[in-house]
């Protein structure tokens, strides 16, 4: 296939190239706004019904997150970075918090680590259910869409009870977390996990083992082990191709070293395996939620903020925590006014976390001022999107949604 990669001035602009016309080749544009997808475009060149060349074109929801971060105080960046992937808020902001904690030379106490793990897993379940719902509607299975989004509500409600907000939790802060679990939370969480476990079996019956869906997913979009490693993909997508890579496994952070769970790895690498990998991951996340909640219940409610805080906190702060003030909720810590004008010692740091869609990496550089010098974010969707280019050619056009959905794309996350 002959396509000139640049126009006469030598500037490469996607979609603006002059291509030689060839017989029976047509260019189909999926996006930038099509139902189900976010704002992203895919150039597809078809020969009859077969996709010949696929080129993802990203950047429609680019918000200059990294540059914006350079103009905000350290703590103000936490609500900002939540907007990268709003449905996975805790996982997305956690590496930033961890990177800044490394620069500050502090470490979150044990209870805070467990609380962070709890919200991360709640977010992961909600994020996978969202992805599954979108996947369902891509394949014309609106039942799964409704189910996925309805069941996601259970976990959003759990997160709301824990943090006070449905999606933008702003939960982990430097040195700890902002709230402890309410009194009735463990019971609610157990009910939710028991419900979800039962529900996953029904998901398998109505969606994954459904012959109509199976025939659309099986052996479609096969990503071999070598290919996945070469492209540098992350998250459940490579674990579905047989690569044993997970940040929780290779470099345990927070409380992941202490809880007992499995990393499901599938061998097939097709769309069905990617869908199953997510279902199995939800199951493991539910196990983690159960274990963490039990741990939190057994251990005393103290020290979910750095110990310096408890030593210097005035009486009012302790009253707020104990719920002695009538109008404010219980188990809430007050942030010290120093958070508003925090200065981080100069240095460079790096942190990574396994978010719902894969590994998210933050590189933070400080020059000792109250603003970060540089924050670099590499989000999981950004690393996964290149797979479309290599997996899709050779398939029929009707397989595009099946492959596209199975990668659990999230345009705001790869545009940042």
């Amino acid at each position: 296939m002959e396509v000139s990669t640049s126009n006469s001035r030598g500037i490469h602009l996607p979609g603006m190239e002059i291509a030689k016309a060839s017989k029976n080749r047509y260019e189909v544009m999926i996006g930038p706004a099509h139902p189900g997808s976010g704002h992203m475009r895919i150039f597809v060149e078809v020969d009859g019904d077969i996709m010949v060349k696929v080129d993802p074109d990203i950047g429609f929801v680019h918000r200059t997150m990294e540059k914006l971060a350079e103009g905000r105080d350290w703590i103000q960046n936490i609500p900002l970075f939540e907007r990268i992937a709003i449905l996975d808020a805790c996982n997305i902001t956690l590496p930033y918090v961890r990177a800044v904690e490394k620069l500050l030379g502090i470490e979150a106490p044990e209870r805070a680590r467990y609380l962070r793990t709890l919200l991360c897993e709640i977010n992961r379940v909600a994020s996978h259910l969202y992805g599954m719902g979108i996947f369902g509607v891509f394949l014309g299975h609106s039942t799964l869409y409704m189910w996925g989004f309805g069941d996601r509500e259970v976990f959003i409600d759990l997160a709301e009870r824990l943090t006070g907000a449905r999606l933008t939790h702003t939960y982990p802060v430097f040195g700890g977390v902002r709230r402890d679990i309410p009194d009735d939370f463990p019971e609610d969480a157990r009910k939710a996990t028991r419900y979800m476990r039962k529900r996953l079996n029904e998901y398998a019956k109505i969606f994954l083992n459904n012959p109509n869906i199976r025939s659309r997913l099986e052996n479609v979009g096969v990503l071999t082990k070598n290919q996945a490693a070469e492209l540098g993909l992350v998250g459940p997508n490579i674990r579905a191709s047989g690569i044993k890579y997970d940040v929780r496994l290779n470099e345990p952070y927070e409380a992941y070293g202490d809880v007992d769970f499995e990393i499901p790895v599938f061998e097939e690498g097709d769309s069905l395996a990617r869908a199953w990998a997510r279902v199995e991951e939800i199951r493991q996340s539910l196990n983690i939620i159960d274990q963490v909640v039990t741990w939190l219940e057994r251990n005393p409610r103290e020290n979910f903020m750095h110990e310096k805080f408890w030593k210097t906190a005035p009486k009012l702060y302790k009253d707020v925590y104990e719920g002695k003030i009538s109008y404010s909720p219980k188990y809430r810590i007050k942030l010290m006014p120093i958070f508003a004008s925090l200065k981080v010692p100069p240095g460079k740091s790096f942190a990574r976390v396994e978010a719902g869609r894969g590994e998210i990496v933050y590189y933070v550089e400080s020059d000792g001022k109250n603003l970060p010098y540089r924050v670099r974010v590499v989000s999981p969707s950004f690393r996964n999107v290149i797979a479309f280019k290599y997996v899709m050619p050779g398939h029929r056009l009707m397989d595009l949604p099946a492959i596209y959905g199975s990668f659990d794309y999230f345009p705001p996350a790869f545009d940042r």
Partner: protein
Amino acid sequence: MPAKVSLKKNPKRNPLGKVFAGNIGALAVGLKYFFDPNRITLLYPHEYIKLNKGYRGFIVLIKEKCISCSSCARICPAAAMRMLSIKVYNEKLKKYMIKKYPVINYNRCIFCGLCVDVCPTEALYHVPYHDIVYENMNDMILSLEDFQKEPENIEFKEGIPVKYYFDESRGLVKTPYMEELEKQGEKEEKNQKVEGEGEKGAG
């Protein structure tokens, strides 16, 4: 205990064949929910969710407690909160002094709650609701007087309060709030009793 890797494979197709295993299984589940659906829909204008106390809704200022430290305006990630300078008569010094008080712009507020958490005297608090209609955008910039009042929620006048409870078989169950209020009260009393006994035992 670190994580373990578990190798898995896609579940195989049922040997009984497509028709008996897959389709009938899917249809059975579909039929089950056709007759007994899991409905969590909120009929919004007629019903509203009675949210928990910890919910981060609109913010209210208690002017007497404010010490004009400006921490809330400093920490606000969206620059929604600004300090307003006002002449106040100081009775101790017997003269007029300029004092600063925060005001909020709901055009910008993202309800992160950092201002409430950073306030050293707990002069700000959240109300547990977030649905208010403003007639124009200028009304969303509150004056100091408005910022001290709890905003009026129109839903409270007409709607029925409901609450979602977790349930093992249904996930979330929507229940009218008033009925549950009494039960909850009883529960809390019981819990307090149990806790009291526990403390005695521990002591």
